[in-house]
């Protein structure tokens, strides 16, 4: 078990939650929908060489999700274009609707080329693979 703890601590550096950071270039006025009001709930789990990210984006259509990776910063935006209750007179509102944004800092160990994304029933799934860099390289002095 001691070994597991050691590895877990190391793994945490591979994907760092940047919650609380603002989407710099995604200004609210650019969005043709709701303002960004939510940091979506996420599960990040590790399965050998695979890091899987599941994110809840209920109410967002597949084409309104953008996933952007730049300089190791993974940004996920889900735009809510219109309220589900559009055209209706709201008489009970227990939850709020809005667009979603969350970003993560990826370490060098993640192979950016191999990231795969899927979306089904309001859940975005990303598969991130640990690349060659994950295996420590020994450099010899010539």
């Amino acid at each position, binding site marked *: 078990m001691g070994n597991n703890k050691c590895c877990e601590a190391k793994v945490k550096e591979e994907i760092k939650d940047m919650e609380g950071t603002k989407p710099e270039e995604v200004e609210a006025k650019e969005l043709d929908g709701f303002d960004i009001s939510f940091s979506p709930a996420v*599960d990040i*789990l590790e399965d050998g060489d695979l890091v899987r990210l599941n994110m809840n984006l209920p109410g967002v259509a597949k084409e309104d999700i953008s996933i952007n990776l730049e300089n190791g910063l993974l940004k996920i935006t889900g735009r809510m274009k219109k309220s589900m209750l559009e055209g*209706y007179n709201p008489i009970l509102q*227990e939850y709020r609707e809005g667009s979603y944004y969350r970003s993560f800092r990826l370490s060098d160990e993640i192979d950016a080329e191999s990231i795969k994304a899927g979306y089904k029933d*309001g859940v975005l799934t990303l598969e991130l693979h640990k690349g060659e860099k994950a295996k420590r390289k020994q450099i010899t002095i010539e």
Partner: protein
Amino acid sequence: MNFLRAWYPFERGLPRFNPFERVLESFADRNEMDFPLFNVGEDKNEFLITTELPGMNMSDIDVSVTNRTISIKGEMKHEEKKEENYHIKERISKASFSRHITLPVPIDGGSIKAQYKDGVLSVTVPKAEEAKPKSISIAIE
């Protein structure tokens, strides 16, 4: 045993739009009856009930009607891995829920439609003929 507690949303007053207040409220009276949360809209002919249930199968959601009451039941189960595999775990992975909502006017229970799209369940409930607004033209003699 408040499992069968009746829930009368329309007696609670109008919705509140102050988000801060909502946060406080959701902590204040949180219990199993408060999941999932509902939004309800109304027009001349029907009600629309929406609720966010990401990652479910439509076959695990059960919508039923008795008189003016719509019941939504279901079971949410995501793949469950060992605790140490998770870096972050925020999503609800297991929940069985049952909530009902009583609408303020008679409804046409036979024509209710439920749709599940992008993780949101929406239930369209037509009003009964007698509950729809009518305009009557009165001839002046």
